[in-house]
Protein backbone atom coordinates (compact mmCIF):
# COMPACT_ATOMS: atom_id res chain seq x y z
CA UNK A 1 0.00 0.00 0.00
CA UNK A 2 2.94 2.29 0.79
CA UNK A 3 4.29 1.98 -2.74
CA UNK A 4 0.83 2.84 -4.07
CA UNK A 5 1.00 6.18 -2.24
CA UNK A 6 3.67 7.12 -4.74
CA UNK A 7 1.04 6.85 -7.49
CA UNK A 8 -1.74 8.84 -5.91
CA UNK A 9 -4.18 8.62 -8.81
CA UNK A 10 -4.23 4.83 -8.31
CA UNK A 11 -4.03 5.05 -4.52
CA UNK A 12 -7.13 7.25 -4.29
CA UNK A 13 -9.13 4.59 -6.18
CA UNK A 14 -8.64 2.35 -3.15
CA UNK A 15 -9.61 5.10 -0.73
CA UNK A 16 -12.79 6.03 -2.62
CA UNK A 17 -16.14 4.42 -1.93
CA UNK A 18 -16.95 1.81 -4.62
CA UNK A 19 -19.63 4.07 -6.20
CA UNK A 20 -17.19 6.98 -6.51
CA UNK A 21 -14.34 4.80 -7.80
CA UNK A 22 -16.76 3.28 -10.34
CA UNK A 23 -17.94 6.76 -11.35
CA UNK A 24 -14.34 7.87 -11.90
CA UNK A 25 -13.66 4.85 -14.09
CA UNK A 26 -16.87 5.49 -16.03
CA UNK A 27 -15.93 9.12 -16.70
CA UNK A 28 -12.41 8.14 -17.77
CA UNK A 29 -13.96 5.60 -20.18
CA UNK A 30 -16.38 8.29 -21.42
CA UNK A 31 -13.42 10.63 -21.96
CA UNK A 32 -11.72 7.97 -24.12
CA UNK A 33 -14.98 7.48 -26.04
CA UNK A 34 -15.26 11.25 -26.71
CA UNK A 35 -11.65 11.27 -27.92
CA UNK A 36 -12.25 8.32 -30.23
CA UNK A 37 -15.47 9.80 -31.64
CA UNK A 38 -13.88 13.20 -32.18
CA UNK A 39 -10.81 11.62 -33.80
CA UNK A 40 -13.20 9.85 -36.17
CA UNK A 41 -15.06 13.19 -36.70
CA UNK A 42 -18.34 11.65 -35.46
CA UNK A 43 -18.42 14.26 -32.67
CA UNK A 44 -17.20 17.85 -33.08
CA UNK A 45 -13.44 17.67 -32.31
CA UNK A 46 -13.12 21.39 -31.57
CA UNK A 47 -15.03 20.88 -28.32
CA UNK A 48 -15.03 17.15 -27.63
CA UNK A 49 -11.30 16.53 -28.03
CA UNK A 50 -10.14 18.94 -25.28
CA UNK A 51 -13.17 17.91 -23.20
CA UNK A 52 -12.23 14.21 -23.41
CA UNK A 53 -8.65 14.91 -22.32
CA UNK A 54 -9.91 17.10 -19.47
CA UNK A 55 -12.26 14.33 -18.26
CA UNK A 56 -9.55 11.67 -18.27
CA UNK A 57 -7.02 13.92 -16.56
CA UNK A 58 -9.30 15.24 -13.81
CA UNK A 59 -10.81 11.86 -12.91
CA UNK A 60 -7.49 10.05 -13.08
CA UNK A 61 -5.52 12.77 -11.36
CA UNK A 62 -7.21 12.70 -7.95
CA UNK A 63 -4.68 13.09 -5.12
CA UNK A 64 -4.34 13.50 -1.37
CA UNK A 65 -4.05 16.90 0.23
CA UNK A 66 -3.45 17.98 3.81
CA UNK A 67 -5.85 16.68 6.47
CA UNK A 68 -6.71 13.64 4.36
CA UNK A 69 -8.71 15.61 1.82
CA UNK A 70 -8.86 14.48 -1.79
CA UNK A 71 -8.74 16.86 -4.72
CA UNK A 72 -7.00 17.74 -7.98
CA UNK A 73 -4.79 20.48 -9.36
CA UNK A 74 -7.28 21.59 -12.00
CA UNK A 75 -10.28 23.55 -10.65
CA UNK A 76 -12.34 23.92 -7.54
CA UNK A 77 -15.72 25.26 -8.70
CA UNK A 78 -17.01 25.36 -5.14
CA UNK A 79 -14.47 27.90 -3.87
CA UNK A 80 -16.77 30.38 -2.19
CA UNK A 81 -15.16 33.13 -0.13
CA UNK A 82 -12.36 35.41 -1.28
CA UNK A 83 -9.65 33.75 0.85
CA UNK A 84 -10.49 30.31 -0.48
CA UNK A 85 -10.65 31.64 -4.02
CA UNK A 86 -7.23 33.33 -3.74
CA UNK A 87 -5.78 30.04 -2.46
CA UNK A 88 -7.15 28.01 -5.36
CA UNK A 89 -6.17 30.67 -7.92
CA UNK A 90 -2.58 30.04 -6.90
CA UNK A 91 -2.85 26.24 -6.77
CA UNK A 92 -5.22 25.04 -9.52
CA UNK A 93 -3.98 25.79 -13.03
CA UNK A 94 -7.44 26.14 -14.65
CA UNK A 95 -8.91 28.11 -11.74
CA UNK A 96 -8.14 31.52 -13.32
CA UNK A 97 -9.92 30.46 -16.55
CA UNK A 98 -12.94 29.24 -14.56
CA UNK A 99 -13.14 32.17 -12.17
CA UNK A 100 -12.60 34.93 -14.71
CA UNK A 101 -14.36 33.53 -17.78
CA UNK A 102 -16.88 30.86 -16.76
CA UNK A 103 -18.58 32.17 -13.66
CA UNK A 104 -19.54 35.42 -15.43
CA UNK A 105 -20.36 33.91 -18.85
CA UNK A 106 -17.41 35.67 -20.56
CA UNK A 107 -16.30 32.47 -22.35
CA UNK A 108 -19.72 32.17 -24.06
CA UNK A 109 -19.52 35.84 -25.10
CA UNK A 110 -16.02 35.36 -26.56
CA UNK A 111 -17.24 32.40 -28.63
CA UNK A 112 -20.20 34.50 -29.75
CA UNK A 113 -17.93 37.36 -30.90
CA UNK A 114 -16.06 34.87 -33.07
CA UNK A 115 -19.28 33.34 -34.41
CA UNK A 116 -20.54 36.82 -35.29
CA UNK A 117 -17.35 37.50 -37.23
CA UNK A 118 -17.79 34.39 -39.41
CA UNK A 119 -21.56 34.52 -39.89
CA UNK A 120 -22.97 35.22 -43.32
CA UNK A 121 -26.26 37.16 -43.04
CA UNK A 122 -26.95 37.68 -46.75
CA UNK A 123 -29.89 35.24 -46.91
CA UNK A 124 -31.34 36.47 -43.63
CA UNK A 125 -31.46 39.98 -45.08
CA UNK A 126 -32.58 38.88 -48.53
CA UNK A 127 -35.35 36.60 -47.21
CA UNK A 128 -36.14 37.76 -43.66
CA UNK A 129 -39.70 36.40 -43.43
CA UNK A 130 -38.72 32.91 -44.61
CA UNK A 131 -35.68 32.81 -42.30
CA UNK A 132 -37.47 34.07 -39.20
CA UNK A 133 -40.61 32.00 -39.81
CA UNK A 134 -38.56 28.80 -39.92
CA UNK A 135 -36.49 29.88 -36.90
CA UNK A 136 -39.66 30.49 -34.87
CA UNK A 137 -40.98 27.01 -35.82
CA UNK A 138 -37.66 25.41 -34.86
CA UNK A 139 -37.93 26.75 -31.29
CA UNK A 140 -40.66 24.19 -30.54
CA UNK A 141 -38.29 22.16 -28.35
CA UNK A 142 -37.16 25.23 -26.38
CA UNK A 143 -40.81 25.99 -25.65
CA UNK A 144 -42.32 22.57 -24.93
CA UNK A 145 -39.38 21.19 -22.93
CA UNK A 146 -40.04 23.79 -20.21
CA UNK A 147 -43.38 22.29 -19.04
CA UNK A 148 -42.14 18.73 -19.73
CA UNK A 149 -39.10 19.32 -17.49
CA UNK A 150 -41.30 20.72 -14.75
CA UNK A 151 -43.62 17.72 -15.06
CA UNK A 152 -40.52 15.56 -14.54
CA UNK A 153 -39.82 17.32 -11.26
CA UNK A 154 -37.29 20.05 -12.07
CA UNK A 155 -37.76 23.51 -10.51
CA UNK A 156 -38.68 26.30 -13.01
CA UNK A 157 -35.17 27.81 -13.34
CA UNK A 158 -33.54 24.42 -14.01
CA UNK A 159 -36.38 23.45 -16.39
CA UNK A 160 -35.86 26.67 -18.36
CA UNK A 161 -32.12 26.07 -18.42
CA UNK A 162 -32.36 22.56 -19.94
CA UNK A 163 -35.13 23.73 -22.31
CA UNK A 164 -32.57 26.07 -23.91
CA UNK A 165 -30.82 22.97 -25.31
CA UNK A 166 -33.69 23.00 -27.85
CA UNK A 167 -32.14 26.15 -29.29
CA UNK A 168 -29.12 24.01 -30.20
CA UNK A 169 -26.66 26.77 -29.48
CA UNK A 170 -23.79 25.74 -27.19
CA UNK A 171 -22.58 29.15 -25.95
CA UNK A 172 -26.20 30.24 -25.41
CA UNK A 173 -26.92 27.14 -23.29
CA UNK A 174 -23.75 27.83 -21.27
CA UNK A 175 -24.66 31.48 -20.70
CA UNK A 176 -28.31 30.68 -19.95
CA UNK A 177 -27.52 27.88 -17.52
CA UNK A 178 -24.95 30.01 -15.66
CA UNK A 179 -27.66 32.65 -15.21
CA UNK A 180 -30.54 30.28 -14.53
CA UNK A 181 -29.13 27.23 -12.74
CA UNK A 182 -25.51 27.74 -11.75
CA UNK A 183 -25.34 24.41 -9.87
CA UNK A 184 -26.26 22.47 -12.99
CA UNK A 185 -24.45 24.46 -15.65
CA UNK A 186 -21.72 21.86 -16.16
CA UNK A 187 -23.97 18.84 -16.85
CA UNK A 188 -26.43 20.93 -18.89
CA UNK A 189 -23.67 22.39 -21.07
CA UNK A 190 -22.00 19.01 -21.53
CA UNK A 191 -25.36 17.43 -22.44
CA UNK A 192 -25.90 20.26 -24.95
CA UNK A 193 -22.49 19.91 -26.60
CA UNK A 194 -22.63 16.11 -26.77
CA UNK A 195 -26.10 16.15 -28.30
CA UNK A 196 -25.18 18.93 -30.72
CA UNK A 197 -22.38 16.67 -31.90
CA UNK A 198 -24.83 13.79 -32.25
CA UNK A 199 -27.24 16.03 -34.26
CA UNK A 200 -25.01 15.58 -37.27
CA UNK A 201 -25.81 11.85 -37.21
CA UNK A 202 -29.34 12.04 -35.76
CA UNK A 203 -31.07 14.73 -37.82
CA UNK A 204 -30.53 12.94 -41.18
CA UNK A 205 -32.69 10.13 -39.73
CA UNK A 206 -35.34 12.59 -38.52
CA UNK A 207 -35.69 14.34 -41.90
CA UNK A 208 -36.69 11.06 -43.53
CA UNK A 209 -40.25 11.86 -42.50
CA UNK A 210 -40.23 14.42 -45.35
CA UNK A 211 -41.32 12.73 -48.61
CA UNK A 212 -38.36 11.94 -50.85
CA UNK A 213 -39.67 14.01 -53.78
CA UNK A 214 -39.80 17.12 -51.56
CA UNK A 215 -36.27 16.50 -50.27
CA UNK A 216 -35.07 16.46 -53.88
CA UNK A 217 -36.48 19.91 -54.78
CA UNK A 218 -33.87 22.10 -56.48
CA UNK A 219 -33.60 25.80 -55.64
CA UNK A 220 -31.92 28.39 -57.83
CA UNK A 221 -29.44 30.27 -55.61
CA UNK A 222 -28.87 32.78 -58.45
CA UNK A 223 -32.34 34.22 -57.67
CA UNK A 224 -31.14 35.42 -54.24
CA UNK A 225 -31.14 39.25 -54.35
CA UNK A 226 -27.90 41.11 -53.64
CA UNK A 227 -27.68 42.82 -50.24
CA UNK A 228 -25.73 46.07 -49.89
CA UNK A 229 -22.86 45.93 -47.34
CA UNK A 230 -24.24 49.09 -45.71
CA UNK A 231 -27.57 47.34 -45.11
CA UNK A 232 -25.84 44.44 -43.34
CA UNK A 233 -23.86 46.81 -41.11
CA UNK A 234 -26.99 48.84 -40.32
CA UNK A 235 -28.87 45.63 -39.47
CA UNK A 236 -26.15 44.55 -37.01
CA UNK A 237 -26.14 47.92 -35.23
CA UNK A 238 -29.90 48.56 -35.12
CA UNK A 239 -30.90 44.99 -34.15
CA UNK A 240 -28.25 44.94 -31.42
CA UNK A 241 -29.61 48.16 -29.93
CA UNK A 242 -33.22 46.97 -30.26
CA UNK A 243 -32.63 43.61 -28.55
CA UNK A 244 -30.40 45.08 -25.81
CA UNK A 245 -33.13 47.57 -24.93
CA UNK A 246 -35.66 44.73 -24.70
CA UNK A 247 -33.54 42.24 -22.74
CA UNK A 248 -30.72 43.81 -20.71
CA UNK A 249 -30.20 40.41 -18.99
CA UNK A 250 -29.07 38.91 -22.29
CA UNK A 251 -27.39 42.10 -23.54
CA UNK A 252 -23.84 40.65 -23.20
CA UNK A 253 -24.80 37.87 -25.62
CA UNK A 254 -26.45 40.24 -28.12
CA UNK A 255 -23.57 42.72 -27.90
CA UNK A 256 -20.98 39.97 -28.42
CA UNK A 257 -22.70 38.44 -31.44
CA UNK A 258 -23.48 41.75 -33.13
CA UNK A 259 -20.08 43.31 -32.48
CA UNK A 260 -18.56 40.37 -34.36
CA UNK A 261 -21.10 40.85 -37.14
CA UNK A 262 -20.53 44.62 -37.28
CA UNK A 263 -16.76 44.16 -37.46
CA UNK A 264 -17.20 41.70 -40.34
CA UNK A 265 -19.59 43.92 -42.27
CA UNK A 266 -17.46 47.03 -41.71
CA UNK A 267 -14.55 45.06 -43.19
CA UNK A 268 -12.11 45.81 -40.35
CA UNK A 269 -9.67 43.12 -41.44
CA UNK A 270 -7.41 43.11 -38.38
CA UNK A 271 -10.37 42.62 -36.03
CA UNK A 272 -11.98 40.03 -38.32
CA UNK A 273 -8.75 38.01 -38.27
CA UNK A 274 -8.51 38.31 -34.50
CA UNK A 275 -12.16 37.50 -33.70
CA UNK A 276 -12.57 34.66 -36.18
CA UNK A 277 -9.16 33.10 -35.47
CA UNK A 278 -7.32 33.31 -32.16
CA UNK A 279 -10.29 34.54 -30.12
CA UNK A 280 -12.90 32.07 -31.42
CA UNK A 281 -10.66 29.01 -31.41
CA UNK A 282 -8.85 29.98 -28.20
CA UNK A 283 -12.16 30.42 -26.39
CA UNK A 284 -13.57 27.19 -27.88
CA UNK A 285 -10.48 25.24 -26.81
CA UNK A 286 -10.60 26.47 -23.22
CA UNK A 287 -14.38 26.02 -23.15
CA UNK A 288 -14.02 22.34 -24.03
CA UNK A 289 -10.98 21.70 -21.83
CA UNK A 290 -12.39 23.44 -18.76
CA UNK A 291 -15.79 21.74 -19.15
CA UNK A 292 -13.99 18.39 -19.27
CA UNK A 293 -12.02 19.29 -16.15
CA UNK A 294 -15.26 20.25 -14.40
CA UNK A 295 -16.77 16.83 -15.15
CA UNK A 296 -15.82 15.24 -11.86
CA UNK A 297 -17.48 12.19 -10.38
CA UNK A 298 -19.90 14.29 -8.30
CA UNK A 299 -21.57 15.32 -11.57
CA UNK A 300 -22.68 11.85 -12.65
CA UNK A 301 -23.68 10.86 -9.13
CA UNK A 302 -26.25 13.68 -9.24
CA UNK A 303 -29.62 11.96 -9.91
CA UNK A 304 -30.77 14.95 -11.99
CA UNK A 305 -28.23 14.13 -14.70
CA UNK A 306 -30.32 11.23 -16.00
CA UNK A 307 -33.36 13.54 -16.29
CA UNK A 308 -31.20 16.12 -18.11
CA UNK A 309 -30.02 13.46 -20.59
CA UNK A 310 -33.63 12.52 -21.42
CA UNK A 311 -34.76 16.16 -21.64
CA UNK A 312 -31.85 17.08 -23.93
CA UNK A 313 -33.00 14.46 -26.46
CA UNK A 314 -36.62 15.61 -26.15
CA UNK A 315 -35.68 19.28 -26.67
CA UNK A 316 -33.56 18.69 -29.77
CA UNK A 317 -36.03 16.21 -31.30
CA UNK A 318 -38.96 18.60 -30.81
CA UNK A 319 -36.97 21.49 -32.28
CA UNK A 320 -36.02 19.34 -35.27
CA UNK A 321 -39.65 18.33 -35.78
CA UNK A 322 -40.75 21.97 -35.45
CA UNK A 323 -38.19 23.01 -38.08
CA UNK A 324 -39.35 20.24 -40.43
CA UNK A 325 -43.02 21.22 -39.93
CA UNK A 326 -42.07 24.85 -40.67
CA UNK A 327 -40.24 23.75 -43.82
CA UNK A 328 -43.26 21.75 -45.02
CA UNK A 329 -45.65 24.65 -44.33
CA UNK A 330 -43.36 27.12 -46.13
CA UNK A 331 -43.00 24.82 -49.14
CA UNK A 332 -46.82 24.86 -49.43
CA UNK A 333 -47.15 28.65 -49.25
CA UNK A 334 -44.03 29.59 -51.21
CA UNK A 335 -44.53 30.63 -54.83
CA UNK A 336 -41.00 29.54 -55.76
CA UNK A 337 -39.67 25.97 -55.46
CA UNK A 338 -38.71 25.41 -51.82
CA UNK A 339 -36.93 22.43 -50.28
CA UNK A 340 -38.46 21.74 -46.81
CA UNK A 341 -35.12 20.34 -45.60
CA UNK A 342 -34.15 23.96 -45.01
CA UNK A 343 -36.45 23.82 -41.98
CA UNK A 344 -33.98 21.61 -40.11
CA UNK A 345 -31.30 24.29 -40.62
CA UNK A 346 -33.38 26.66 -38.51
CA UNK A 347 -32.34 24.64 -35.45
CA UNK A 348 -29.57 27.10 -34.96
CA UNK A 349 -26.45 25.01 -34.57
CA UNK A 350 -24.43 27.26 -36.93
CA UNK A 351 -23.39 25.91 -39.40
CA UNK A 352 -23.90 22.20 -38.58
CA UNK A 353 -27.64 22.02 -39.25
CA UNK A 354 -27.27 23.95 -42.53
CA UNK A 355 -24.66 21.38 -43.57
CA UNK A 356 -27.02 18.57 -42.50
CA UNK A 357 -29.77 20.05 -44.71
CA UNK A 358 -27.38 20.22 -47.68
CA UNK A 359 -26.06 16.69 -47.04
CA UNK A 360 -29.61 15.24 -46.92
CA UNK A 361 -30.67 17.12 -50.07
CA UNK A 362 -27.58 15.98 -51.98
CA UNK A 363 -28.23 12.38 -50.86
CA UNK A 364 -31.48 12.29 -52.87
CA UNK A 365 -30.59 14.77 -55.63
CA UNK A 366 -26.98 15.63 -56.40
CA UNK A 367 -28.04 18.85 -58.16
CA UNK A 368 -29.94 20.19 -55.11
CA UNK A 369 -27.85 23.12 -53.80
CA UNK A 370 -29.69 24.47 -50.74
CA UNK A 371 -26.80 25.46 -48.45
CA UNK A 372 -26.89 29.20 -49.31
CA UNK A 373 -30.64 29.28 -48.50
CA UNK A 374 -30.19 27.22 -45.33
CA UNK A 375 -27.78 29.75 -43.79
CA UNK A 376 -30.59 32.31 -43.44
CA UNK A 377 -32.81 30.30 -41.06
CA UNK A 378 -29.67 29.03 -39.30
CA UNK A 379 -28.61 32.58 -38.37
CA UNK A 380 -32.21 33.60 -37.64
CA UNK A 381 -32.29 30.67 -35.19
CA UNK A 382 -29.43 32.25 -33.22
CA UNK A 383 -31.51 35.43 -32.88
CA UNK A 384 -34.72 33.63 -31.81
CA UNK A 385 -32.81 31.47 -29.31
CA UNK A 386 -31.17 34.59 -27.87
CA UNK A 387 -34.63 36.19 -27.52
CA UNK A 388 -35.94 33.13 -25.67
CA UNK A 389 -32.83 33.10 -23.46
CA UNK A 390 -33.63 36.69 -22.54
CA UNK A 391 -37.30 35.84 -21.85
CA UNK A 392 -36.39 32.82 -19.68
CA UNK A 393 -33.74 34.68 -17.67
CA UNK A 394 -36.14 37.58 -17.10
CA UNK A 395 -38.86 35.05 -16.29
CA UNK A 396 -37.08 32.98 -13.67
CA UNK A 397 -34.23 34.91 -12.05
CA UNK A 398 -33.47 38.40 -10.82
CA UNK A 399 -35.11 40.72 -8.33
CA UNK A 400 -38.65 40.25 -9.65
CA UNK A 401 -38.90 37.12 -11.80
CA UNK A 402 -41.85 37.60 -14.18
CA UNK A 403 -43.00 33.98 -13.90
CA UNK A 404 -43.58 34.33 -10.16
CA UNK A 405 -45.13 37.78 -10.60
CA UNK A 406 -47.73 36.31 -12.99
CA UNK A 407 -48.44 32.95 -11.41
CA UNK A 408 -47.28 33.44 -7.82
CA UNK A 409 -44.73 31.16 -6.14
Amino acid at each position, binding site marked *: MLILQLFQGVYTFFLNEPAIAGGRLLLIALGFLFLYLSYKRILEPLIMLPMGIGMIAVNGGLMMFEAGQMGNLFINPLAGNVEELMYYLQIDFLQPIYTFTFSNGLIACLVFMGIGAITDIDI*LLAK*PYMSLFLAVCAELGTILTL*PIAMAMGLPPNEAASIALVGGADGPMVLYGSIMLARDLFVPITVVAYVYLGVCYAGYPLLVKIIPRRLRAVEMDWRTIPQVAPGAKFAFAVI*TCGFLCVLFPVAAPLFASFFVGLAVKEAGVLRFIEFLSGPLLYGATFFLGFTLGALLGVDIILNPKVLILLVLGVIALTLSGLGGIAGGLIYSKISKEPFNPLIGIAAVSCVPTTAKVAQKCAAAVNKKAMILPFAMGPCVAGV*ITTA*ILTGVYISGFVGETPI*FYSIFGS
Partner: protein
Amino acid sequence: MVLNSLFFAFIAYGIMMVIALFVAAIIKTIALVVQRGAKHAAAGTDKQEG
Protein backbone atom coordinates in the same frame (compact mmCIF):
# COMPACT_ATOMS: atom_id res chain seq x y z
CA MET B 1 -47.24 24.63 -11.56
CA VAL B 2 -46.78 22.51 -14.71
CA LEU B 3 -49.85 24.13 -16.30
CA ASN B 4 -48.52 27.56 -15.33
CA SER B 5 -45.21 26.75 -16.99
CA LEU B 6 -47.09 25.70 -20.14
CA PHE B 7 -48.87 29.06 -20.16
CA PHE B 8 -45.58 30.84 -19.58
CA ALA B 9 -43.98 28.87 -22.42
CA PHE B 10 -46.73 29.99 -24.80
CA ILE B 11 -46.39 33.59 -23.60
CA ALA B 12 -42.64 33.32 -24.30
CA TYR B 13 -43.39 31.90 -27.76
CA GLY B 14 -45.75 34.80 -28.48
CA ILE B 15 -43.18 37.36 -27.35
CA MET B 16 -40.52 35.71 -29.50
CA MET B 17 -42.81 35.76 -32.55
CA VAL B 18 -43.62 39.45 -32.14
CA ILE B 19 -39.95 40.37 -31.70
CA ALA B 20 -39.00 38.21 -34.70
CA LEU B 21 -41.60 40.13 -36.71
CA PHE B 22 -40.04 43.41 -35.53
CA VAL B 23 -36.59 42.16 -36.59
CA ALA B 24 -38.01 41.29 -40.03
CA ALA B 25 -39.56 44.79 -40.19
CA ILE B 26 -36.18 46.35 -39.29
CA ILE B 27 -34.56 44.39 -42.14
CA LYS B 28 -37.22 45.47 -44.64
CA THR B 29 -36.97 49.12 -43.53
CA ILE B 30 -33.19 49.11 -43.87
CA ALA B 31 -33.50 47.55 -47.35
CA LEU B 32 -35.98 50.28 -48.34
CA VAL B 33 -33.80 53.10 -47.00
CA VAL B 34 -30.69 51.72 -48.71
CA GLN B 35 -32.62 51.31 -51.98
CA ARG B 36 -33.92 54.92 -51.83
CA GLY B 37 -30.44 56.17 -50.97
CA ALA B 38 -29.05 54.39 -54.01
CA LYS B 39 -31.82 55.86 -56.22
CA HIS B 40 -31.14 59.40 -54.93
CA ALA B 41 -27.44 58.96 -55.51
CA ALA B 42 -28.10 57.75 -59.05
CA ALA B 43 -30.48 60.68 -59.69
CA GLY B 44 -27.83 63.13 -58.38
CA THR B 45 -25.22 61.69 -60.72
CA ASP B 46 -27.66 61.96 -63.69
CA LYS B 47 -28.37 65.66 -62.89
CA GLN B 48 -24.65 66.48 -62.67
CA GLU B 49 -24.05 64.77 -66.00
CA GLY B 50 -27.06 66.60 -67.60
